[in-house]
């Protein structure tokens, strides 16, 4: 098997695809293959890692054109695990590869690339911060816990399971063309707070993203749900939030659940990966 890895060197701005021979064996993951390369072949290869158990969200990369956690992606099963994604025209022409003997590993699209597979999460976390993701307790807290029904816990868990790995952001065609869109992870997080019965019963949370770049930018491609390693469905949260705003008479436009209003790429992106040009990608201030 050949690991075909997209490289980016910020000191020169050069982009290349390097080929590394790896022997797949049962249990060998994309992450362990990347370590094999870094430790035995080329120690200039950079990629993020931490838990290696699919809970920390560090190692999301594009494997065979699909955002996945490198640590839970088995090398010998990549080809057989079909993930159907709606096409993302902002990605441009894909890098060719032969899935029968090659595994294509690239950085997450829609993020600036900093070095090889390491991308800049600052835009992603700016949206996270903008939603004010901290619990607002009711007044008059006692020294006991607030009550919460088990059924409510179950609904909240659907969204608290998010590990902020960025896979959904990378898979979302809207994130590719709209630099201001908050993205699926941030909106799912916001919905988790909007749904929390322990918070004061007002509509401040759903109103927070009642704006063109918030709930209303989503076009229900549902790629977010398809790639989420934790089974979180941001598309359902977004749909529910829109319905609630409509019930409140606060929806700015009629709710359209299904559109396929896909536009051509607009930003200066490297063909096939969707991030900015190397010159810009190498500059963290862009």
């Amino acid at each position: 098997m050949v690991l075909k890895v997209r490289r980016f060197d910020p000191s020169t701005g050069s982009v290349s695809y390097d080929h590394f021979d790896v022997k797949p064996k049962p249990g060998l993951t994309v992450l362990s293959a990347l370590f094999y390369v870094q430790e035995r072949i080329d120690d200039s290869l950079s990629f993020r890692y931490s838990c290696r158990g699919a809970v920390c969200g560090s190692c999301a990369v594009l494997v065979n054109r699909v955002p996945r956690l490198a640590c839970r992606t088995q090398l010998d099963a990549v080809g057989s695990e079909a993930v159907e994604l709606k096409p993302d025209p902002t990605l441009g022409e894909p890098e060719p590869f032969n899935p029968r003997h090659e595994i294509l590993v690239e950085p997450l699209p829609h993020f600036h690339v900093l070095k090889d597979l390491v991308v800049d999460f600052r835009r992603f976390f700016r949206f996270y911060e903008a939603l004010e993701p901290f619990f607002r307790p009711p007044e008059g807290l006692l020294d006991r816990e607030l009550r919460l029904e088990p059924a409510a816990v179950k609904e909240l868990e659907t969204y608290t399971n998010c590990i902020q790995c960025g896979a959904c952001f990378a898979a979302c065609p809207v994130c590719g063309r709209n630099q201001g869109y908050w993205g699926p992870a941030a909106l799912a997080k916001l919905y988790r707070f909007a749904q929390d019965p322990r918070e004061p019963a007002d509509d401040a949370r759903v109103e927070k993203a009642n704006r063109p770049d918030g709930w209303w930018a989503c076009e229900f491609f549902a790629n977010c749900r398809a790639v989420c390693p934790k089974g979180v469905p941001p598309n359902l949260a977004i749909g529910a939030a829109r319905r609630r705003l409509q019930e409140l008479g606060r929806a700015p436009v009629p709710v359209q659940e299904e559109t396929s209003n896909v536009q051509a790429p607009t930003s200066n992106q490297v063909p096939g990966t969707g991030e900015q040009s190397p010159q810009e990608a190498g500059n963290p201030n862009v």
Partner: protein
Amino acid sequence: MQPHPLHSHDVVIVGGGLTGLRAALEASRAGLDVAVISKVHPLRSHSVAAQGGINAALGNAPGGEDDTWGKHAFDTVKGSDFLADQDAVETLCRDAPAAVVELEHMGTVFSRLPDGRIAQRPFGGAGFPRTCYCADRTGHNLLHTLFEQGVGRRLKVYDEYFVTSLVVTDKRCSGCIALDLSDGTLHGFAAKAVLLATGGYGRIYARSTNALINTGDGAALAWRAGLPLEDMEFVQFHPTTLYGTNILISEAARGEGGYLLNSRRERFMKRYAEQAMELAPRDIVARAIQTEIDVGRGFKNEYVLLDLTHLGAERINERLPGIRQIARDFAGADLVREPIPVQPGQHYSMGGVPAETDGSTLVRGLFAAGECACVSVHGANRLGGNSLLETIVFGRRAGAAMVESARAVPAPAAEPLEAALAQELARIDRLLSRERTERVNNIRDDLMMTMFEMFGVFRDEARMREGLGILTHLKSRLDGVGIGTRQSSYNQALVAALELEGMLEVAETVARSALNRLESRGSHARTDFPARDDANWLVHSMAWNRGGQVEIVHKPVAVGMFPVEARQY
């Protein structure tokens, strides 16, 4: 020549996991200028991987109404094989209910009883169902909650900065030096108080449940700054790690009723802990499993089975969805339908930087809390559910103590920081320009195998002496370590080399402390000294750095509330 930025904060916290974030919140609420420095983004910290729960005597669960902090304290002390300092345990257990309620008030979505109160489950070595939980993703939920609170306070975080040294002069800490991984620049951080909250040293072992980042960096920083390391021989082996990857399979699996089976399909725990069975403390269950494997009643001489099939899909999906997914992802097995293969693996570092219950250490201005510290609340064996508790209780207390400490001292002088910066620059430059005759991973792999084989679940003098010889040789090979790339951006080979230096230092303190202790207690099981020896060894081991040599000195254990007695389950 790259610029070398200097920063100044009242309080600098090294580590962005639960302990670090809890301490940071405390200091930030008091109005201090706080910075968190971490080699990963805080949400990638190892705290996120904690599964089973956090202990507090809330008395919520049916059958747990009579639980008290005192009973929690007794279970903790007995679980520690009486090596824990009982005054510190009292603090831990008294603070526990308020700590859990506080987390809930920050928004944590704990699993609930039908009446809406926080649910509690049975855990190993506990007399009552005392462990509060968020399904089997408790650490994940707590870490995200605290990070969210940090966002609310606009906490300053330097993520992807690797701290290379502490600035210590005249037994006072005034800051640290850190490498910005994104561009390779060295930064100086001046601070009135510094907290080490860097987690454990699990990755010096092969077969560890720990994140790959748990390389004992905080212990190594303290060691190089002249601090001793306490009780380093006490390394917890978790009974149930997934065969193949050693990813943790939570104790909650047994708390919810799971069985351990050997190759004869018998629940062998009846031979080792007749009453508690699978819910005996971890050291006992780990030894039982290892014994079954060693005498030939395991599978492939490697593992036993953890059977949850009788619990049913509904209960598993509600209480243990995370480990069901882990088993599916990493072992290709559905634990609703079939037992899964498990073996003991390194899990937790009971030892660490000696610290008081307010986090203070022997160096003024330097604090330590969480897994990198030794308070000591876990003694020779930690109970499940007490580590998350420790992070919150002692993170908060260390944060408060740092506020007092920082207010009492003027801004540190610039000279020690600049001198330390120059020293670290030279060190990294030497490393980068050295010709490579050794690869980091070769030495690290040998280290991990040596620790696992010679200082593992069972120990004896001959194997430990052999292990020490190997460690000495590995240290000599360090001089040949070179970096293949001089790239400044995300030079992970450089970080791995810096980590390895500390791992070898920490490993030697584990080895020397283990060889020195001539008894079996808690996780330290010596086949040549199989009994506990309270007359001679009811003492903490303090490993001191004497010019590069490890010297072990004893420190008395704080006994008080609970008399030392035989430990049976």
